[in-house]
């Protein structure tokens, strides 16, 4: 079976500074991948490169087997890749309802699991805020909105960059549960989160980045058994 | 050689006027065989963009960079003010082929500054007796809230009230607004015997159209300074038919001098309309010619040349005229009526009308 997303020897620069070094990376359909690493190691940069926001200086990105190294983010998104960025990216001048509806569309193969109502059911807190501007939401509410909005595109891969930042423990638990549900429906996930234990527990495979280099790639279950690695690369 | 600098608008709303004036000036020089008083004429030109705030700088281009001997300009009053100041300071001769600001040949008059056109006061004043003759007792004046409009309507008011009429309201529109509907409604509610208007260019077109569109003309006749219908008739179309205006020129004077001028101009510049601006530009050249002839082409003898210019009798297509002491033409003002897309002469409204040149110490 071919990978959903596959990146081969990616190199990415921001201007003069070299951030990613020959990164190889892939996500298979339905698979859940965790991305671990300290602050500033290039996790978000890798994601942004995959999404097409940053153009790699060399390397190749394949999505569903086709070359998409130079595709624009909207083309990537239309292939079923949804992205919850760090910092949330809520549209401040749209209200909650609009923030959700603006993203609504059926996924690849007309997949239509996530309706507006279902998203609201998942995040009941948002129901009370439908008319509020994105700017006025509390931090946690914004985070829920960002995830809900990504789901509105009915993706096959959900990329969550620090998606639980600023959420209450109950909600975080809920989000992990939802991620579980999403996984069960066959949606692949790529997860960056500071809570590495949760990441390890909720993913099939984990990739560890250190200064833009992939230093480890292991089944999550195996990695959990190696606390010394975690100490070395995550400082815990 | 004599260096002549045109500071005229070549772009924007007055762009055509500037070109016309230049063409007519050159036409006269060509008719004289390309020389005035035996001197070659070298031309320089600067687009003044009708922008008074650039006036001084543009004047400097001609005076200091090109070092012209004679300045010809401009159309816009504010620009002409700047030009007059610069010319005075530099001791260069200035011939104004259009701008009508009263002040230039009033308080700010000066020896080397001449005008071959008119002062705003003149056509306005001349309309006063016309309105009285027609039996109008009350009038409303309307114009943009700016100096030229004020001067023109003041002239009208002066003459109209001298003869027993009464201007009951003076209406103004902020310059350069062209939304006239509220004031037309106001006029309809005041119901004067007659309306005197001063507008030019696009404002004139729009005002005349709106006045006709409101059907006011049937009950309250519209009179205006000539610029209401000069250069604008094509755009105004039928709405201008029958309008009476006063100006120092008309389209069918039918004098030998005028016919010769018109024939010559339309032969040389077939696509350029012949209008009052062409005539004024032509006369600017004639005035300069008179001055140069008196000093035998020696532009250095400026004082003598100025003397000769102020005493010259210009054989203008509009009819002969002399300049007043302040440098403004003493000229017949015609009453014209719009017929078949032309400003046709009805009669002479006031003969040999001189601007009072209030405040001029010359």
């Amino acid at each position, binding site marked *: 079976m071919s990978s959903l997303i596959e990146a081969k020897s990616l190199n990415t620069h921001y201007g003069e500074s070299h951030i990613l070094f020959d990164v190889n990376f892939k996500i298979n359909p339905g698979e859940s991948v965790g991305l671990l690493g300290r602050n500033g190691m290039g996790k978000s940069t890798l994601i942004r490169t995959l999404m097409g926001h940053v153009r790699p200086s060399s390397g190749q990105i394949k999505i569903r087997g086709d070359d998409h190294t130079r595709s624009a983010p909207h083309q990537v998104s239309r292939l079923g890749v949804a992205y919850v960025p760090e910092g949330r990216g809520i549209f401040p001048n749209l209200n909650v309802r609009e923030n959700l509806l*603006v993203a609504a569309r059926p996924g690849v193969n007309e997949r239509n699991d996530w309706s507006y109502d279902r998203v609201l059911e998942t995040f009941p807190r948002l129901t009370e805020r439908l008319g509020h501007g994105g700017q006025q939401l509390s931090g946690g509410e914004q985070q829920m909105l960002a995830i809900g909005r990504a789901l509105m595109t009915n993706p096959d891969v959900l990329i969550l960059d620090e998606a639980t930042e600023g959420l209450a423990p109950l909600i975080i638990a809920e989000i992990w549960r939802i991620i579980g549900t999403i996984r069960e429906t066959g949606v692949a996930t790529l997860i960056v989160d500071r809570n590495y234990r949760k990441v390890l527990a909720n993913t099939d495979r984990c990739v560890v980045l250190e200064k833009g280099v992939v230093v480890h790639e292991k089944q999550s279950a195996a990695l959990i058994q190696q606390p010394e690695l975690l100490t070395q690369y995550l400082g815990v | 050689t004599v260096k002549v600098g045109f500071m005229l608008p070549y772009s*924007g709303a*007055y762009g055509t006027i500037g070109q016309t004036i230049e063409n007519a000036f050159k036409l006269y020089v060509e008719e004289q065989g390309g020389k005035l008083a035996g001197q070659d004429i070298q031309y320089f030109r600067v687009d003044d963009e009708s922008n008074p705030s650039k006036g001084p700088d543009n004047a400097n281009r001609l005076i200091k960079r090109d070092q012209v001997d004679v300045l010809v300009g401009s159309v816009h009053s504010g620009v002409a003010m700047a030009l007059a100041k610069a010319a005075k300071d530099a001791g260069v001769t200035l011939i104004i082929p259009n701008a009508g600001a009263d002040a230039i040949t009033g308080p700010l008059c000066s020896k080397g500054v001449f005008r071959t056109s008119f002062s705003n006061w003149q056509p306005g004043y001349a309309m006063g007796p016309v309105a009285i003759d027609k039996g109008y007792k009350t009038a409303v004046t309307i114009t943009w809230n700016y100096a030229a409009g004020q001067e023109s309507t003041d002239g009208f008011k002066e003459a109209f009230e001298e003869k027993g009429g009464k201007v009951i309201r003076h209406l*103004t529109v902020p310059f350069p607004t062209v939304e006239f509907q509220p004031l037309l409604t106001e006029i309809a509610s005041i119901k004067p015997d007659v309306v005197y208007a001063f507008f030019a260019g696009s404002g004139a077109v729009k005002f005349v159209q709106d006045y006709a569109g409101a*059907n006011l003309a049937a009950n309250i006749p519209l009179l205006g300074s000539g610029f209401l219908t000069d250069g604008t008739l094509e755009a105004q179309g039928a709405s201008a038919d029958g309008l009476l205006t006063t100006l120092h020129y008309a389209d069918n004077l039918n004098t030998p001098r005028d016919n010769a001028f018109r024939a010559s101009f339309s032969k040389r510049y077939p696509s350029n309309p012949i209008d009052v601006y062409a005539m004024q530009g032509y006369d600017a050249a004639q005035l300069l010619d008179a001055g140069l002839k008196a000093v035998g082409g020696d532009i250095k003898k400026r004082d003598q040349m100025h003397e000769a210019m102020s005493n010259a009798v210009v054989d203008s297509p509009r009819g002969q005229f002399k300049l007043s002491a302040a440098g403004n033409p003493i000229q017949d003002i015609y009453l014209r009526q719009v017929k078949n897309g032309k400003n046709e002469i009805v009669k002479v409204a006031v003969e040999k009308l001189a601007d009072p040149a209030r405040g001029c110490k010359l």
Partner: protein
Amino acid sequence: MDVTTYLIQCLNAVQYGLLLFLVASGLTLIFGIMGIINLAHGSFYMIGAYMAFALQPLVAQYLGGGFITTVLVCIVLAALLGYFLEWAFYSYLYTRDHLQQVLMTYGLILVFEELRSIIIDNDVHGVSAPEWLSGSIQLGDLMTYPTYRLFISAVCIIVAVFMYWLLSRTRLGMMIRAGASNREMINSLGIDINQLFRVVFALGVALAALAGAIAAPVSSVYPGMGNAVIIICFVVVVIGGIGSIKGAFIAAMLIGFVDTFGQILFPQVAGVLVYIMMATILLFKPEGLFKQG
């Protein structure tokens, strides 16, 4: 002022307000919603008016249509022009400092004005209203009111309703607003924001041209007509609250009334009244009457 005059003045005010809204409507899209400080909006208005003037004989000759056909042709051509301009000039400015837009659109104004003068000329021209709209209705005892002005008002209202529907009842409005605040994010959601902006920009230009073409018979076409409206357009959008169609509509109406009654009641300060009003409104509502979001 007697009652009839007063009512007629109100009609004038409404009519003027509607016209202002029509002229500003394209700017509401381009500036208010897409967030581009487009000084060249007046030029698009001017282009519309001049197209109506220049194309009328051509349309009559080749398409056999009258005024309405001409206006439609103008709209289509303007939309194409807008599409091209966005692609060629505006598209690379989104990620830059907004001030760059100011400078570039200033350059465009100069270019358009000069091209206008080269292609047409510097004269004032009239455009005739279609025969079937050239009638008038009696108002008061002396005055009549041209039917064509009522027609303009009708067009303005249709445009207002259309824009309101487009922006608050369709997803398009959300997408544009979202794109204006965060292009990267809207892109991540699978929306081709470049294409979308290009289309909306074209629509904005088309609206400006429509305003110019429709207004041409009453305003005539003349050099500098674009620059004469640009400031008032920004005033309309800003007083209304950037991005709000409803706000722009109400602002245009307010200006219509202030201007109309200002000219009659306070002629000496009429020119500045609109600005006094704007300053006052913004002092009490620093983000306009109806701020979006």
